[in-house]
């Protein structure tokens, strides 16, 4: 996957382009581990994400946990539809805590009936 990275005063903006699916997660994980070292505030702009599945979602969750563990901030913006659908399904809006912009039609497709409350990331985290 390609990553466009901009370093700004507030931190680093990361724009991935491509797929985040089971086929790519191993590779992306390696890339992300390196990228994540470069700043303490990370803005992940997902506009360029073509597709995402549960494996990809899991990777994002794991990234979130890593940032939490290392006192880094992670903000995700410009969620593509596929990701919003997964967040709605698994009730993970609260997990990530990001603002998700939804139009009125989108609110009907993805009601976010549950999972919007912030939860304790410490509890989800497995420690080795």
């Amino acid at each position, binding site marked *: 996957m390609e990553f466009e990275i901009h370093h700004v005063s507030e931190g680093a903006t990361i724009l991935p382009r491509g797929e985040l699916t089971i086929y790519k997660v191993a590779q992306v994980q390696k890339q992300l581990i390196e990228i994540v070292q470069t700043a303490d505030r990370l803005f992940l702009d997902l506009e360029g994400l073509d597709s995402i599945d549960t494996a990809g979602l899991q990777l994002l969750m794991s990234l979130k946990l890593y940032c939490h563990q290392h006192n880094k901030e992670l903000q995700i913006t410009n969620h593509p539809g*596929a990701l919003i659908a997964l967040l709605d399904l698994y009730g993970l809006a609260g997990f990530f805590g990001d603002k998700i912009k939804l139009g009125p039609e989108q609110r009907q497709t993805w009601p976010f009936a*549950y999972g919007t409350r912030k939860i304790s990331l410490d509890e989800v985290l497995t420690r080795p």
Partner: protein
Amino acid sequence: MDFSEANDTFFAECEELLSKIESGLLVLESDPRNEEEIHSLFRAIHTIKGSAGMFGYESIEDFAHTFENVLQKLRDQQIQVTEALIDTFLKSRDQLATLVSLASNAQSPDEACETQSNQLKEVLLAHLSGLADAARTTEGSVLQSAAADADQAESDPVPDSPVEPGLTATRHLIVTLHFRTQTFRDGFDPASFLRYLREKSGFIDVKLLPATLPALDQLDAESCYLSLQIELRTELDDTAIKAIFEFAADDVELSIEPRDATASPPGSGPAALTPDPAEQSTGAASQLASVASTDTSTALAINPAPEDLDDETEAEAAKSGNNRNLTENKRTFLRVDSEKLDVLVNFVGELVTSSAHILQIARTFGIKEVIESTEELSALVSEIRDSALQLRMIPIGQVLNKFQRIVRDISHELGKDVELRIFGAETELDKSVIESLSDPLMHIIRNAIDHGIESEADRSAAGKAARGTITINSWHETGEIVIEVSDDGKGIHRERVLSKAMELGYINAGENPTDSEIFKYLFYPGFSTAGSVTNLSGRGVGLDVVQKNIDSLRGKVGIQSRTGAGTTFQIRLPLTLAIIDGFLVRVANSSFVIPLDMMDECIELGHDDHVDGQMDVMNIRGEALGIIDTAQLYNLPDSHTTVRRNIVVIRYGDQRTGLLVDELLGEVQSVIKPMGKIYGKLAGIGGSTILGDGTVALIIDVASTLELARHARALPGRLPDRKLVGA
């Protein structure tokens, strides 16, 4: 290694396989116990999946994988063939075709396409859990939402009636799901199952179990760590819920508990994650522990390696005592670039002209050995020519078979029961002609289903079988190919067509046209007597386009109909290949070529049988033979009776007619040059050809010549009427 060629082969192979899959599915629909067909479908999808994987087309591989899994269950007889299943399979095949098409244009599927793929995958998985009827509902709502505009609300699933099996009164449950590490690697996405479960029940809450997921540096990205607890309200009973996950049973551990009053209510926020921390975490830990220990033992039960799969399928193919596969393999086919074929045919054309020239020169010089040799050469060139032209001939069945699917889809759409029967599928015609025929035939078939075949109720009332039949029949006649499309519907309403034609000014009051004359106005622009305009037809734009298409193929189309019994469209196309075997004759100062296969015999007129232009019937061995004076027909200067004249007897259908000509000049083989646009549709002439000596001869189009003569003088007999082909 150069993959680009292999890549092209992959796409070509996929196209063939997808086409085979479609016809296979239609066969399976009418013969649900056809095991051989199931095996063949499985192998086809398996091949697509494997090849796609090899070339890195993940979306295709992924989709085919799910498709294959369902086929496998079918093959293992764990699920049955139902109409809903076939429907799903057909839609899945279409989606696969779309994915392949995108890939062949080096495009990736967009979000809408991905959504469609996901939804179809869910429907496929739904069939696995045996909830075939439920799948129908899901299909209805799931696929509708795929087609719906973005601003339409997603429809709620239709509630099942409580009396159906697998359902109870609404229960409030906690369903705990532990997805094992291998889940992703085994090709599953938990989201599919969750979505389906959510469709069938109301999710109140979904929680992650604690201590599930490691941080990024500790993560094995391809392993699945997800453990979820879902609180829901449902009418499904435990078996039904388990059945949803049954397909991935090896990869998911599931437990169902009633949510009783002692558990913390859903609205308690952060505490919800740790309602009873001690119990919850030990519970989770113990479950995880049991997962770990059973992991290795169950790991082997999961999908066998691809090599094993191939051995298995091969062994099966050998075992299944039928030899169809083997006999199919005996005929090998070669994939040829059609441009190369065109080049070859061009050269053959030149060869024919050249050898004809040589033959003529040889005859002029009159040297016996040379003439013999060149005649031998001509014969060989003839063979080459025939073979080359045969290369371009394809059985019409290839075009006709795809109509099976279309008839099925349209009849479902219109709520009629219609069957398509095809005869004469092996009749061959030129490749380019076949391509042009597809659209006109489509129009005619749509008309037949839309306006011809009545509803089941009407048919029963009329004493007909509830299932309507459309028959396509195809055969060769001398120099032509005939294609008939018949239906056993209600026929064309003669009076309505007549009054419409009068309304449009094509027929005047007081005229008394025959049925076929009336029906030919249906091909005129703006003509539609349909009461209502449907999606498919009735807009008055159908049949005139059909006429145009067939005109461009220099063919003819006609209609016959009987009220209450049905309608037949008959298309005749000339089989005039680029090179003609003809017989050269002289009429006055002009040369004409008569197609050899339309000729029956030649008769030399004696001096006493001189023709005075009035004679139009001759007695030939007791047969009354109509005679056309060709010179008169084409207004050529009269040649005089000092020259012995001849009659060339031509056959059209079952009608024999004599053409009166001056001189018989022998057989020729030459390349047909079509008449230039300026000549439009010249009655009686079907093209021109250049003779060996460079002069131009006109080729007589027998059909239109006879028509021309018929109008010019009252020729005994009529153009032959073909009988309606009975069911």
